């Protein structure tokens, strides 16, 4: 990696505003020295956007924050310099550093929700930035910034506390706070990770616009290649603290040279095939397979809640089929999963399953009241395997529990063998049985979650956002595993995700939800290629993928429009149902 | 090592400076305490300062004049006539007359007063047997002969209050005493000031202040930090005494044999029904040794005779100490290796040491006593007179007749061992009727012998009361229930 930074000088941009040179950072863990970043170099020019991509833990945030002269406590710089606007950030005195921070270099931290002080009004926090650097800070001025980041009713919203805002709004406040002092350099750390695609699109559009208006230089950190692709001019790929590839975003993300980048790109599921790659065949499915689960007109309410969380839900899952539910946050996806798993009762409607004893069984009861055979037939895999495994129990114990509970094994020896088989089946070894969850990686934990679900020998697996917490490469492995097992055991799967690309790669059929209603459902290909509901279309349009060079223009109105409570579901093609809302293409 | 304990044999004597204020810390009785001497809840430190009795006891236990100048009886001791001191008046100016005496006695006898002395007096007199013959003469007509009758009027409940004052005396404290009440609050602070017109001469002090401090250590601390000059009703243990002696400005005084310690064996209990067992319990220990171990010799051996050695009426002689005999007796009674709990409490600092010392000696005679300590506040309500064996104490200073009748006569309400002996009761009756001083004393001594031989109440030791005081205090005296408030005083301030 010679010639640091040199290759990035680009005639399109002005002077260098930040130079990172041979940066090596490490921290001590016990008696070992762990390197977080090694010999990282890059430059950031006036008006330029540089993307920093890489898997979780690759050191992106660490590097990005050095532009503000910040290190996590315990870390130290072993080598290299960080120069911003001609000043070496790590030799500045406390006062000078404070003057630089916020005024010249600002950061929008990784998680806006947690980076806003909970006890202060958001307006006050923006004001603080202004005041610190001696800028105008009357309420009108603050409201202007809120308006600038396109928050509704700015005067009112700046009076709120952080927890009174949605995730997207918090993100905008964080951005407003950063741009308020008109900094030269802005560091955006995962600005859209916690947001749904539509909000993500809006936030990215905002960043784009602000950059142009204020002529800032931006360092954007993300593990989402699509986001970086859409917004960055140049990209640096970090792998375990080492910059493995750098170059124009267009080149790196369409024609990667480094093997690591290639792997990263290949693992990312896509809605649209990468240029030059064939459109994958839609996953075939036998339409005549017998129905396993059937829900009609299901209403679900949380205990003591005033309104229904899910209304008039309907779904059919056939044996061996994977049905995906997608939809914005709060649309009721998890609620449906919980109701089918029996964590919530069904208030109205019909819900039946053909259980392991081949009899049709009622699913409206909560799990406590279901007969064991039904309980066994429906098993759930949780989003964060980390949290769904009891940290104090060994893996073997966790996996063996359903075996004992559902009397799948009779003796201790048999249990042990079965656990071993299950672990092998999910791609681990028997030795894992003795470990505790803390000793596993995220992907391994998710495999354990799957093994535990399989132990009950279910007929239906419910997978609620099971890959959201995983890195793309791990995610691809887990999805492949799930697919394999499903095939082998003839399982049906209810797959919940907000990532359309992931859904496309696994689902036979897709159900789109919004505000507790199903707005569209049908075969995967029909939904993805021929979306009829305005919301589905907005969802699909918001997706940014590697190689995309500009942001999609999303009609925000579509998203904001509420579902019409009285609308009916209309069958537009064989099995493709669309809700007859305003703007639906029937 | 620490300095050897050298307790002063008695209080400092000397010429006090006239006047001055003395501050006394006392334990707060309870918020129900009163200045009515007849009551069982009287604030007793005040009484000697405020009131006088007809007669009082001297240190030997002899009855001597107080408000009565002289007294006489008829031949069979059924009628007693008291001639009163002339020219005495109460603090409010009201002259003191025989009517006040009659009124006081009736007040004591009144069931509503619930006076502890009522029972004793009622066996001899009733409301219509007290006559104010004239202003200076009171006559008591007894139901039964009693040659020791005057001594019964030395009790501190018998302080004379002015006629018609029963309802108010509890807070006004109007008496004839050397001091008059200045302020008073139950369980709180109060003070008395000198009565310049006191018939027996002006007291040394100008003023005495009383403060109530419940916690013993806190009381001692108040003395050590010179907040007070004297601790009343605070018998100090050895350690505290040393600290007080060793500290700047404070010392201790000894009141010889002021504490009468008893170990009542409940005569109605299955353990001690048998006189043989009781006898063994006595023979098994040596009073002198116990005196040394329990209270470092600061007192006298009791040898189970309840009459303190300071009193002239004490029977001479000493019961034997014979642990082997004790063992044999127990065997005979079929109580070999007797096992019983001995109760004690922090109520008084020496109860536990006495229990420990006694148990140690009893072990040598094969008696196994398990020491059981009970919280101080329920000791006299839940243990006393209900557990077979405990350690208890009284103040000495009762006249011999009252002592024997009150604590040992069958059925008396203070009979803490529930002991009953017909012959003993008869001896007491005949003593009372005996007008001959010498033969009467002999009879009282016979009675003592019966207690020593058969009684259920052991008297292991008499203890000196060790009183903490400022080293400026001189002429501190206390005997019976009487403080000598007349002569006590403070040395002139040296600086």
């Amino acid at each position, binding site marked *: 990696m010679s010639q640091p930074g040199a290759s990035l000088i680009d005639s399109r941009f002005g002077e260098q505003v930040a130079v990172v040179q041979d940066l090596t950072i490490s921290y001590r863990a016990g008696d070992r020295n762990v390197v977080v970043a090694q010999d990282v170099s890059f430059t950031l020019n006036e008006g330029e956007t540089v993307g920093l991509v890489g898997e979780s833990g690759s050191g992106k945030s660490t590097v990005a924050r050095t532009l503000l002269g910040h290190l996590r406590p315990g870390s130290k710089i072993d080598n290299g310099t960080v120069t911003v606007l001609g000043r070496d950030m790590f030799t500045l005195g406390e006062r000078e550093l404070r003057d630089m921070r916020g005024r010249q270099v600002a950061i929008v931290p990784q998680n806006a929700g947690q980076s806003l002080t909970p006890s202060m009004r958001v307006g006050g926090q923006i004001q603080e930035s202004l005041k610190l650097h001696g800028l105008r800070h009357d309420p009108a001025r603050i409201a202007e910034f809120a308006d600038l980041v396109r928050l509704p009713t700015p005067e009112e919203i700046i009076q709120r506390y952080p927890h009174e805002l949605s995730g997207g709004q918090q993100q905008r406040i964080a951005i407003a706070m950063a741009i308020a002092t008109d900094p030269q350099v802005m560091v955006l750390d995962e600005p859209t990770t916690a947001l749904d695609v539509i909000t993500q699109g809006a936030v990215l559009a905002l960043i784009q616009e602000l950059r142009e208006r204020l002529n800032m230089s931006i360092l954007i950190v993300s593990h989402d290649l699509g986001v970086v692709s859409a917004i960055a001019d140049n990209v640096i790929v970090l792998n375990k603290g080492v910059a493995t590839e750098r170059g124009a975003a267009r080149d790196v993300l369409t024609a990667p040279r480094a093997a690591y980048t290639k792997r990263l790109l290949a693992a990312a599921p896509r809605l649209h095939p990468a240029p030059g790659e064939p459109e994958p065949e839609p996953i075939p499915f036998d339409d005549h397979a017998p129905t396993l689960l059937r829900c009609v007109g299901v209403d679900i309410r949380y205990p003591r809640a005033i309104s229904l969380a899910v209304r008039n839900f309907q779904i059919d899952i056939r044996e061996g089929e994977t049905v995906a539910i997608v939809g914005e946050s709060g649309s009721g996806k998890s609620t449906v999963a919980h109701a089918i798993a029996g964590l919530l009762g069904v208030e109205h409607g019909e819900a039946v399953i053909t259980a392991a004893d081949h009899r049709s069984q009622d699913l409206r009861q909560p799990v406590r009241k279901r007969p064991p055979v039904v309980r066994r037939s429906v098993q759930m895999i949780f989003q964060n395997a980390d949290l769904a495994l*009891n940290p104090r129990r060994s893996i073997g114990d966790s996996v063996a529990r359903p075996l004992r509970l559902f009397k799948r094994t009779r003796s201790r020896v048999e249990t042990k063998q079965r656990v071993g088989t299950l672990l092998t089946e999910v791609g681990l070894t028997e030795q894992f049985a003795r470990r505790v969850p803390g000793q596993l990686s995220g992907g391994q934990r998710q495999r354990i979650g799957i093994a535990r679900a399989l132990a009950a020998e279910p007929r239906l697996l419910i997978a609620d956002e099971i890959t959201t917490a995983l890195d793309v490469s791990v995610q691809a492995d887990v999805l492949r595993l799930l697919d394999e097992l499903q095939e082998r055991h003839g399982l049906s799967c209810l797959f919940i995700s907000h990532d359309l690309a992931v859904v496309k790669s696994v689902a036979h059929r897709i159900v789109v939800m919004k505000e507790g209603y199903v707005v569209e459902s049908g075969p995967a290909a029909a939904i993805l290629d021929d979306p009829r509901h305005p919301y589905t279309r907005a969802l699909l349009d918001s997706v940014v993928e590697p190689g995309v060079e500009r942001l999609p223009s999303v009609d925000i109105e579509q998203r904001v429009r509420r579902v019409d409570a009285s609308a009916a579901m209309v069958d537009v093609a064989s099995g493709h149902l669309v809700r007859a809302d305003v703007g639906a293409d029937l | 090592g620490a300095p050897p304990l050298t307790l002063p044999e008695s209080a400092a004597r000397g010429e006090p400076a006239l006047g001055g204020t003395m501050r006394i810390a006392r334990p707060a009785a309870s918020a129900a305490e009163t200045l009515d001497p007849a009551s069982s809840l009287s604030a007793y430190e005040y009484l000697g300062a405020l009131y006088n009795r007809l007669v009082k006891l001297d240190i030997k236990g002899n009855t001597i004049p107080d408000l009565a100048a002289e007294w006489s009886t008829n031949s069979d001791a059924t009628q007693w006539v008291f001639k009163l001191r002339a020219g005495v008046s109460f603090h409010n100016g009201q002259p003191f007359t025989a009517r006040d005496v009659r009124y006081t006695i009736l007040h004591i006898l009144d069931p509503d007063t619930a006076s502890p002395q009522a029972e004793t007096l009622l066996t001899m007199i009733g409301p219509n047997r007290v006559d104010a013959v004239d202003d200076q003469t009171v006559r008591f007509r007894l139901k039964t002969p009693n040659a020791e009758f005057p001594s019964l009027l030395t009790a501190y409940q018998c302080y004379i209050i002015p006629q018609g004052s029963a309802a108010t005396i509890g807070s006004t404290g109007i008496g004839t005493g050397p001091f008059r009440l200045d302020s008073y609050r139950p369980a709180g602070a109060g003070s008395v000031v000198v009565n310049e017109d006191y018939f027996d001469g002006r007291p040394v002090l100008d003023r005495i202040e009383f403060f109530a401090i419940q916690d013993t250590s806190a009381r001692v601390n108040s003395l050590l930090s010179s907040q007070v000059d004297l601790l009343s009703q605070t018998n100090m243990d050895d350690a505290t005494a*040393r600290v007080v002696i060793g500290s700047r400005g404070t010392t201790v005084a000894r009141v010889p044999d002021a504490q009468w310690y008893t170990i009542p064996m409940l005569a109605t209990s299955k353990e001690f029904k048998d006189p043989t067992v009781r006898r063994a319990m006595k023979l098994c220990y040596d009073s002198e040794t116990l005196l040394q171990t329990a209270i470092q010799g600061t007192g006298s051996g009791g040898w189970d005779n309840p009459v303190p050695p300071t009193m002239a009426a004490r029977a001479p002689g000493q019961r034997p100490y014979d642990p082997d005999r004790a063992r044999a007796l127990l065997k005979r009674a079929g109580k070999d290796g007797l096992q019983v709990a001995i109760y004690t409490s922090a109520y008084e600092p020496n109860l536990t040491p006495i229990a*420990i010392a006694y148990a140690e000696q009893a072990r040598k005679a094969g008696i196994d006593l398990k020491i059981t300590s009970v919280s101080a506040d329920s000791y006299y309500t839940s243990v006393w007179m209900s557990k077979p064996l405990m350690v208890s104490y009284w103040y000495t200073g009762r006249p011999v007749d009252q002592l024997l009748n009150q604590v040992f006569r069958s059925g008396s309400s203070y009979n803490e061992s529930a002991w009953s002996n017909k012959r003993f009761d008869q001896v007491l009756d005949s003593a009372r009727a005996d007008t001959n001083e010498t033969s009467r004393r002999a009879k009282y001594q016979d009675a003592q012998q019966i207690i020593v031989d058969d009684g259920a109440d052991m008297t292991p030791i008499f203890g000196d009361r060790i009183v903490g005081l400022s080293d400026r205090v001189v002429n501190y005296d206390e005997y019976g229930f009487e403080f000598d408030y007349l002569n006590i005083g403070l040395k002139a301030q040296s600086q």
Partner: protein
Amino acid sequence: MSLATTVRSASDLGLVTLVGIAMVVITVVLAVLSPVLSPYDPIASNADAALMGSSWAHWLGTDAYGRDVLSRTLYGGRFALVVSVLATTICVALGALIGALAAFYEGWIDGAITRVLDAVLAVPAVLWLLLIVSVFGSGTWVIVVAIAAVYTPAVARVTRGAARPVMRSAYVVAAQSRGEMSLPIIVREVFPNILDTILVEYAMRACWVILLVSTLSFLGFGVNPPNPDWGLMIQENRTALVVAPMGTLSPIIALAVLVVGLNLAADGLGKYLGVDRAMRGVA
């Protein structure tokens, strides 16, 4: 666990914690071995040797009854330790159970339990103790039960606080979705995950119980004289502090060593097990 892992996890605990544990262990061992180690009978008085200073015969001198201070100090921890182990065990076990139940049965059961706990906590602990001891006398068992009764609500509250997030954790939801019964969920899923809180609570409670026992003895409601007990020793000897200081100082030091040790151990243990002390109210 192999020796190597034991050693490794011991060193993970940190020096300070180990010192704390050592302080506790030493005190406990001395108390247990006191019959062997004590040069004298702790209750045998000796009138001739009262209030002596340090000497070869009596290393820490004697008290007012001529009893050997060293022997009494060695014995003196026994009562406090026994009471504290018993009382702490009872109150932590009971409190953890009640707290876990309250956390498990959210809703009115939780509400009712909380109200009752609060009502008990609302009356000062000393008052409860004084009342109980007055009613039943001050036997060892009475004190144990009284202290346990007074501390159980506080432990229950802490446990409830710790168990509530666990009840909401994904693995409990997972167990519920499997259709597990209440008891297995509490025992298998909840308890192991609040064990650290409970352990630290145990150590802290033990500290407070020891201090409380000595306070009770001091107030005259605890150990019966002439038995040796630190609180009682302080009470008995404090007036003689100036004349024979060791009589008071040695029980104070012994008490402080034990309590500091327990505190250090609890702190270290908490850090090691990841218990956030700040989140736990100190009741």
